[in-house]
């Protein structure tokens, strides 16, 4: 397929995704919506940490920063998973447009990439707002020491980590799209399962070494663990992560995830076309 057609498909999908996700409200309400949920999520884990620390009479600012960064950047995982899990259901069953997209000259895969990139864009806005509000509330409001100079991050490592991580999450998203196209009514639980498992085993808010041994093996197999380690290193080099090793593991797990994602999606599309699932109707 010509590069121009691919880029046009991605651009239109991003635009459509933006419209679908935002045009239910005016920009201010939308911005509040995109701010409140992730900030509340950050406040929950932040206050769990603070309440627990007050009881024990100890406060470790590096551990607090560990969870602050982990929970904030987990927005990318949540947003990409949510967007890619819901879009097959929405386009096929709710709005009944999947068949038209499938027939259009641009490939369905590139359309999905465009929708996922819109999710990434939304996640980036949410992330910036969450980090800003989080620092304002915890550091300036409650006087918690967050030992990070946000403007002096290792931007190269951050950009590389984000790039590899986002491609990897999109690979996971393709697996979910494949499952969704073959099934119905599992889209909500799929998002919760996947994001829940990644949240628990990915070392998002606590050190994976606290998990039982089998849980640590799971953690070591998940790209999100390395993604968050790389991100943490870029802001907090003294956290003690071997950034090169984490980047290597992230790249390897990313390649594996993308390959599996492509295979699953291709097999699912073959089955969907054979069994007439592309325009399958559900409850709408």
């Amino acid at each position, binding site marked *: 397929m010509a590069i121009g057609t691919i880029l046009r498909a991605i651009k239109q999908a991003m635009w459509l995704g933006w419209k679908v996700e935002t045009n*239910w*409200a005016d920009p201010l309400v939308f911005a509040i*919506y995109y701010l*409140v*949920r*992730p900030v*509340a*999520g950050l*406040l*929950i*884990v932040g*206050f*769990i*940490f*603070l*309440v*627990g*620390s*007050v*009881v*024990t009479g*100890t406060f*470790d600012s590096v*551990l607090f920063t560990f*969870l602050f960064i982990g929970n904030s950047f987990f927005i990318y995982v949540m947003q990409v998973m949510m967007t890619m899990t819901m879009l097959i259901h929405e386009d096929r069953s*709710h*709005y009944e447009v999947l068949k038209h997209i499938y027939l259009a000259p641009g490939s369905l895969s590139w359309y999905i990439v465009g929708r996922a990139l819109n999710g990434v864009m939304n996640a980036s806005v949410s992330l910036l707002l969450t980090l800003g509000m989080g620092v304002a509330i915890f550091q300036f*409001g*409650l006087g918690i020491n967050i030992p990070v100079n946000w403007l002096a991050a290792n931007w190269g490592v951050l950009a590389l980590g984000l790039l590899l991580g986002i491609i990897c999450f999109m690979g996971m998203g393709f697996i979910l799209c494949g499952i969704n196209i073959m099934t119905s*009514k*599992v889209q909500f*639980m799929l998002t*919760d*399962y996947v994001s*829940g*498992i990644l*949240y*628990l085993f990915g070392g*998002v*808010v*606590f*050190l994976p070494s*606290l*998990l039982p041994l089998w849980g640590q093996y799971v953690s070591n197999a998940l790209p999100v663990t390395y993604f968050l380690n790389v991100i943490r290193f870029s802001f907090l080099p003294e956290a003690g992560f071997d950034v090169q090793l984490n980047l290597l593991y992230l790249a390897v797990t990313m390649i594996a995830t993308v390959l599996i994602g492509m295979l699953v999606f291709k097999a699912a599309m073959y089955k969907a076309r054979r069994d007439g699932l592309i325009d399958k109707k559900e*409850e*709408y």
Partner: protein
Amino acid sequence: MRAAYARLWVRIKGGNREPEWLIAELIIPVITLSAYVFLYKMVQAPPEYAGFVIIGGTLMAFWSNVLWNMSAQFYWEKEVGNLEAYLVAPISRMAILLGMALGGFVNTTLRAIAVFVGGILIFQVPMALYEPFTALVIFLLTIAALYALGMMFASLFMLYGREAWHTANLLQEPIQFLSGTYYPTTSRVIPFTVQLLSSLIPLTFGLDGIRRVAILGEGITEVWPNIVALAIFTLILFPLAKLALNFMENLGKKEGRLTLRWQ
């Protein structure tokens, strides 16, 4: 009552028809709760705090049920074209919602018990429940207040489309944060303004009361203010819900939005 029973039957039957949903509703909450329990372990908090998380997660199952299976239900019904059937039938809207609430309560209680027992056993939480009847009273009052709140929200969902969907999404983490689902809001690190806002949510009083009775070993003499607060919430919210439903239905009829799909 016949209308309520009919809706209750559909809810119970529909809620247990798909085993994959049943399994998901048992496993997913435990996954999330586990992350918070490990977070408490990381800061070496006492084991009672794991109990706080498990009780919070158990009651959160009811809040999710209120939001998605009662409040948002009118949105679903509108999208699938059932809402107009409800509106032309010679039945009360409150009866439909009561049926949904009772059916949802039965389904969610089964799941919540499994999550609670599983969580207590997995994380070896020490219990100190000396007055189970007091805990039961607080629990039932909390549920009554939450479902009354859900009925009130249902009026919004009857009228609005995707706004209501996003509102339901929005009412998850912020409510968990404000109500102290995973930590006691009485802790001295919680700012006063947050404590003030949390006192406007019935879930806060329910969580606090049940934790104190079930984990800290307190009794009716200590938690009676929670019981009074929950009773007041229930008495205020039920009539408000009826008023809101009538108002929104009339508004919806005037603006022609009750049968509007794909908003």
